[in-house]
């Protein structure tokens, strides 16, 4: 029996990535990383800033996401995100831009604990890939 299932990543502008041969996807869910294999129970969750790792027959890919929602159903995984890019072709300048705006946001006083947590995460992840 094959261990593969299909994955689709969409962002508001277009369908970013569509694959039929993924074996495992690790996503940075809000309460910790989740690895999704074939025949996982149907799940809806949302993502914090982090790295999505995609393992497929053709190799392994990593993407940075800013936020997102995932839905897994009938061996179809959909990831909706507003900002995503491949770690292979990252743009250092863009990263530092995002980081800067996140730091600015963080310095504001009236943010909730949750946004603070998300921003901290974002900066940490960006630092690690930069």
């Amino acid at each position, binding site marked *: 029996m094959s261990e593969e299932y299909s994955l689709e990543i969409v962002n508001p502008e277009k369908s970013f990535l569509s694959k039929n041969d993924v074996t495992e996807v690790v996503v940075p*869910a*809000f309460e910790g990383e989740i690895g999704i294999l074939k025949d996982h129970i*149907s799940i*809806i*969750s949302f993502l914090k800033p982090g790295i999505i790792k995609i393992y497929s027959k053709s190799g392994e890919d990593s993407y940075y996401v800013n936020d997102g*929602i995932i839905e897994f159903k009938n061996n179809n995984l959909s990831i909706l995100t*507003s900002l995503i890019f491949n770690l292979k072709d990252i743009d250092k300048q863009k990263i530092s831009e995002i980081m800067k705006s996140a730091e600015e946001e963080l310095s504001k006083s009236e943010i909730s604990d949750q946004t603070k947590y998300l921003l901290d995460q974002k900066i940490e992840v960006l630092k690690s890939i930069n």
Partner: protein
Amino acid sequence: MASLDDLKKRISSVKSTQKITKAMKMVAAAKLRRAQESAEKGRPYSEKMNNIILNLSNGISDIEYAPKLLSGTGEDKVHLCVVMTSDRGLCGGFNTNIIKKAKIFFQKILDEGKTLKIITVGSKGYDQLKRVYGDNIIDRISFKDSKNVNYFDADKVGKIVIEKFEKKEFDVCTIFYNQFKNVITQIPQEQQIIPLKTSEEVENSSEDNYEFEPEEDEILSNLLPKNISTQIFKAMLENSASEQGSRMSAMDNATRNAGEMVDKLTIEYNRSRQAAITKELIEIISGAESL
């Protein structure tokens, strides 16, 4: 009667206007294709988003604990209307159609004694509304600088709306935009985004039991603000395709009219030239006869 020189000048000026409208038509046609493409590409995102929200809101058992963005504030007093128009003119009835639709809605709200607040997106809408509803306009946004419709602009509008909602500045939010049907037809739309209307038939609900992480209501309260931005983004995409389509057909008409006008003027020019020649001939002949 206009002299020959005047006619000549008019013909050449109409011709150069025709050149401009022709160029604008072609530019609009090229842009339209791109706008249509991106509208199509953007569709999966908003559809998926809608689906997930439908599934989630079914999972919520107690409506009282549902996030306010979904269930509303329970009141219906203050209406916020987001009117989305273009930043540029010369696009036929595009802006006027949206404004017309919006004005009917405004009147209805004011007649019912409710409070009306308006946010305009795009400078043309503001220009048309400021005279009558100037006091109601609480904010105006324009994206003149960004060349293409992008999600971050939509997100900005979405954040403004949500911020105002959280401050309890309004109860119901409706957006106005043009839906692109084809080049000739654009349908002005009003769409209520807060509280969210889940009017669509719920499919595939009972059989799937989703696992949620974290809890449904927490996901939902994170998802709904995003959905607002997504809906606005969708409206912006539809709007930009409609704008180009409308401009294209308007400029096509203008080019054709200019062509007709040139024909008419040329006939008039030829006639008066012939009349001048005939007059001269008669003068010469009658002069020769009298000798």
